[in-house]
C-alpha cells in the first residue's frame, strides 16, 4: 500500500473513536486510505455553457480538504451537445474536448488536497433538458409535475449515440486527470429511466423484462470500462425507487440490476433511494438518520463489490457502526459536507463538536430546481468559498463587542467576531443559550436537529474566548457602564397579539409558553399565524391528540419553509387532522371559540378553548433606548424582521465579519 500511508490516522482521536471510518479499502486497483466520500453534488455554480468556474473549483477544493485522503466526487456532467442530458442551468458539461482544461482544474484541486478525485457522468433523462424543449427517455411517459419537459422517445440510434457520449465523456474525464469515474443512475435520471418499469415500456431489446431494461446500462458500463484503463468505475443505482404507486421496479428487480452492473464490470455500487417523482420523503429532516441503511445491507447481501451509501448518514457513529457490522463499505455524504466542508477532518481531529450541522432542510436542492446557484441554509460560506469577502480574517481594530441575545443570530456573530480578534461579550436574560430555538426545537418531525446549530455556535464561541453573561437583562445603564465599542442587537422578535376583540382573554397564550409546557392548552385549539412557528406548534399540539385549526394571514401556509420541504408539512398537517385557513384572520375570540374572517369577508365559526399566538413583529425597544448613547449598533436576526433560522445565522455571520 506504500505511499498511501502518508495518511496514517492511528494517532488521531477520530481514529480511536471511529476506527472503521479510517481503515483503507480497495476499489478495483485503487486503494482508498479511508471510508469517506464526498458524494457528487450539482451546485449550479458553473458557466451557462457548462464551463467550470473559479467558484466551483474552490467549492470542490474545500470538500477535498475535508475528506482527509478519501474520495471527493465532482458533480455529474452532461454529455450531449444538444443538452438533453442537462438538468441544471449551471451544470458542468463534458461533450467536447474544450471542457477538459476546466475539468482538469477540479481534478487537480482535489488531488492537491490529497484526496482521490472522482467524476460523474449524469444524463438527467426525463428531468433534464432545462435549456431545451424536449427531454429524452426510453418511452413517452409523462412526468407527474408540470415543470418538466415533454418526453421524446429515444430511437435505437439515439440510445447508441447516448452510450457513445458516455464513453467519450469518460475518456475526457480521464484526460482531465480524474482517478475514478462514476455513472449516476440516481433519482429518475436517464439510467434509472431505462431500468424502471415505470418509465421503460419499450418492446425492443432495450425494454421488456429487467434484463432488457438493463441493456442500455450494461452497454454503457462495458463501453466506459474500455476507455478508462485501470481506473475504478462506480455506479449509483436505486435500491428502492419508492415508485410502487406508479408501478416502478420491485426491490427484487433492483437487486438484479445491482448484480448485472457488477457482472458488467462496475467496481463499486453507490446505493440510492427514491426518485424525484416519488411521493415519499427520503432525505428531509423528518426522516431519522440511518433510516435507509437497510438498503445498503440488502445490497451487501447481493453483490461483492464495495457498497457506498449516503442518505441521512450525518452522525459519524452511524456509518462507523454500519461499516463495522459489515453492511456498508464507504460512508458517502453530500449535504453534511455542503453545510460543513471539513466534517470528516473534524471527526478525525476529535473536533466533532465544531461541525456545523446540516439541518436537512433541502434549501440547497430547492435552489437548484429554481435555476439559482446553490446556497446553504445554515452555512453562509457555502458556494462563496472562492470569495475572500466571506472568509474570516483578523479585524483591523480590536473592539469590545456587546452582543445582546444568545440565540442563533447572536451566537453566530459572537464566534465569528471573536475569531477575528474582538473581545466579545454575549448577554442573555435566560439561563441557557439558544433563544427561540430552546422551545422551537420541540416541534415534531426532526426539529430537535435545529438546535444542533446552537451547540455548534456555542462551542465555537467558547473556543474563541467569548464571555457569556447569562441571566442578565441588558439596559441602557448596563451598556453605559460597560462602554462597548459596538453593540450587536440579537434580541429576537416580539411575539404579538391581534387587535380583534378577545385577544386579551385568559385563554389566549403564547407559542413559546405552549412549547415550554407553561401554558394550559385545551382540547380544541386555534393557532394564530400560518408560518413555521404556527405550523410547528400546531403539529406539536396535534400530536397530543388535540383538534387544531391554523388561522393565518399569509396566502399560503409556511411560506418561510422552502417548497422542497413544505410538501412534507402539508402531508403532516393532513395526517394529523389540522385544519388550515390561509388568507384569513381572527375576527373575534370568545369563551367557546373563534370567529375566522376570510380575506373576502366570509365568517367561519371555529370551536376553540385556547388560542395560541405565533405572530411576530420587529423588536426595536432596546435599540430605541440605547441609540442616544452614540455607540455603534448592529441589528441581526428576527428583531429586524422575523424570518427563520437561516436568516439569523447568515445575518450573524455577516455582521461578525463587518465589525
Amino acid at each position, binding site marked *: 500500500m506504500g505511499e498511501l500511508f502518508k495518511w496514517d490516522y492511528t494517532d488521531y482521536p477520530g481514529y480511536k473513536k471511529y476506527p472503521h471510518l479510517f481503515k483503507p479499502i480497495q476499489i478495483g486497483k485503487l486503494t482508498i486510505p479511508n471510508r469517506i466520500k464526498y458524494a457528487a453534488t450539482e451546485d449550479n455554480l458553473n458557466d451557462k455553457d457548462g464551463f467550470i468556474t473559479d467558484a466551483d473549483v474552490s467549492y470542490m477544493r474545500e470538500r477535498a480538504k475535508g475528506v482527509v485522503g478519501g474520495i471527493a466526487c465532482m458533480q455529474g456532467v452532461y454529455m450531449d451537445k444538444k443538452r438533453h442530458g442537462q438538468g441544471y442551468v449551471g451544470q458542468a458539461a463534458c461533450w467536447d474536448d474544450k471542457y477538459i482544461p476546466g475539468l482538469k482544474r477540479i481534478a487537480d484541486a482535489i488531488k492537491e488536497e490529497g484526496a482521490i478525485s472522482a467524476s460523474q457522468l449524469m444524463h438527467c433523462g426525463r428531468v433534464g433538458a432545462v435549456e431545451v424543449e424536449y427531454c429524452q427517455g426510453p418511452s413517452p*411517459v409523462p412526468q*407527474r409535475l*408540470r415543470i418538466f419537459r415533454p418526453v421524446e422517445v429515444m430511437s435505437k440510434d439515439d440510445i447508441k449515440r447516448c452510450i457513445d457520449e458516455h464513453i467519450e465523456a469518460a475518456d475526457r474525464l480521464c484526460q482531465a486527470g480524474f482517478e475514478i469515474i462514476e455513472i449516476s443512475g440516481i433519482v429518475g435520471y436517464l439510467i434509472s429511466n431505462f431500468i424502471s418499469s415505470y418509465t421503460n415500456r419499450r418492446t425492443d431489446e432495450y425494454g421488456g423484462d429487467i434484463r432488457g431494461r438493463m441493456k442500455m446500462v450494461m452497454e454503457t458500463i462495458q463501453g466506459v470500462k474500455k476507455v478508462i484503463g485501470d481506473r475504478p468505475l462506480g455506479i449509483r443505482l436505486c435500491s428502492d425507487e419508492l415508485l410502487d404507486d406508479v408501478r416502478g421496479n420491485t426491490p427484487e428487480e433492483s437487486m438484479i440490476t445491482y448484480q448485472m452492473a457488477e457482472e458488467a464490470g462496475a467496481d463499486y455500487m453507490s446505493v440510492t433511494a427514491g426518485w424525484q417523482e416519488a411521493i415519499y420523503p427520503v432525505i428531509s429532516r423528518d426522516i431519522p438518520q440511518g433510516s435507509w441503511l437497510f438498503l445498503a445491507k440488502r445490497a451487501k447481501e447481493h453483490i461483492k463489490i464495495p457498497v457506498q451509501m449516503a442518505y441521512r448518514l450525518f452522525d459519524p457513529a452511524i456509518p462507523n457502526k454500519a461499516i463495522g457490522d459489515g453492511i456498508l463499505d464507504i460512508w458517502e455524504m453530500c449535504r453534511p459536507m455542503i453545510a460543513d466542508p471539513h466534517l470528516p477532518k473534524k471527526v478525525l481531529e476529535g473536533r466533532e463538536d465544531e461541525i456545523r450541522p446540516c439541518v436537512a432542510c433541502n434549501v440547497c436542492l430547492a435552489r437548484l430546481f429554481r435555476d439559482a446557484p446553490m446556497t446553504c441554509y445554515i452555512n453562509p460560506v457555502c458556494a462563496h468559498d472562492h470569495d475572500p469577502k466571506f472568509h474570516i480574517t483578523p479585524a483591523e481594530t480590536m473592539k469590545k463587542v456587546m452582543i445582546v441575545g444568545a440565540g442563533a443570530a447572536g451566537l453566530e456573530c459572537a464566534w465569528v467576531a471573536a475569531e477575528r480578534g474582538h473581545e466579545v461579550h454575549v448577554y442573555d436574560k435566560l439561563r441557557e443559550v439558544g433563544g427561540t430555538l430552546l422551545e422551537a426545537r420541540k416541534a415534531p418531525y426532526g426539529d430537535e436537529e435545529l438546535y444542533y446549530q446552537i451547540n455548534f455556535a456555542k462551542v465555537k464561541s467558547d473556543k474563541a474566548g467569548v464571555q457569556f453573561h447569562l441571566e442578565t437583562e441588558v439596559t441602557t445603564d448596563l451598556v453605559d457602564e460597560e462602554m462597548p465599542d459596538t453593540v450587536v442587537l440579537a434580541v429576537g422578535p416580539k411575539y404579538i397579539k391581534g387587535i380583534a*376583540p378577545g385577544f386579551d382573554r385568559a385563554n389566549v397564550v403564547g407559542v413559546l409558553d405552549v412549547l415550554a409546557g407553561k401554558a394550559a392548552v385545551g382540547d380544541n385549539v386555534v393557532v394564530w399565524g400560518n408560518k413555521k412557528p404556527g405550523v410547528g406548534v400546531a403539529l406539536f399540539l396535534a400530536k397530543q391528540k388535540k383538534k387544531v385549526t391554523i388561522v393565518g394571514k399569509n396566502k399560503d401556509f409556511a411560506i418561510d419553509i422552502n417548497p422542497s420541504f413544505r410538501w412534507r408539512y402539508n402531508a403532516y398537517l393532513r395526517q394529523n387532522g389540522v385544519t388550515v385557513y390561509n388568507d384569513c384572520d381572527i375576527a373575534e375570540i370568545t369563551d367557546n371559540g373563534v370567529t375566522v374572517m376570510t380575506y373576502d369577508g366570509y*365568517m367561519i365559526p371555529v370551536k376553540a378553548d385556547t388560542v395560541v399566538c405565533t405572530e411576530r413583529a420587529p423588536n426595536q425597544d432596546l435599540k430605541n433606548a440605547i441609540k442616544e448613547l452614540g455607540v455603534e449598533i448592529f441589528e441581526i436576526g428576527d428583531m429586524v424582521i422575523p424570518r427563520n433560522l437561516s436568516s439569523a445565522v447568515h445575518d450573524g455571520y455577516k455582521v461578525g465579519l463587518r465589525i
Partner: protein
Amino acid sequence: MPVDAEKEISRLWRGLHGAQDSTIKTFYQWRKAAIGLVPDANPSEIALKGWEAMAQDMGKLFLPRLSFSKGEEAFLKQVAGLYVNTWQGYGAVVKVEPGTSPMEVFIKWERCPWPAFAKDFNAPLKEDVAGCDLVLQITIDMVNAFMNTNFKIETQKAIPRGEGICLRRLYKP
C-alpha cells in the same frame, strides 16, 4: 360578533354558483371570439381545440393524484373519482356506480350545466357531446400513458342528446 351560519353558507353557495357559471361562460365567450377571428373555420373545430387544451390541463392535474398502490380495481375507481370531482367543480351532479365486473364502473351525470350554456351561446349541442368525449378521451389516454394501463371510456347516454343523463362506462377491456 356572533356568526349567522345560514347567512354565511348561503353567501358562499351563491358565490360558488357564480364562479361555476362564469367558468363555463368564459369558455363560450372565448369560443365566440375565436370564431369571429377566423370566420372561415369550422366553429366546432375551433371549440374542440379549446376542449383539447382544457383536457391537457385536466390530465396534468390528474397525474400527481394517481396511485396504483392499492391495485387495479382501486385505481379504476380513483380515476372515476377524479372525473366526478372535476365535473362537480363545474356544478354538475355526478356520481360513480359499480359495473357488472370489478374492472368496470359507470359515471353518471344526473345534471350538468354545460349543455344549458351551449344553448345560451347558440353552440350546437352535438358539439357539447363531442367536446366532453374529447376531454374524457385525452385524459384517459394521459392516465394510460402514465400508469401503463389500457382503460377505455365510452359514452352511453348524453344529456345534450335528450337522454336525461350522461352515462359513461369506464372499464378495462
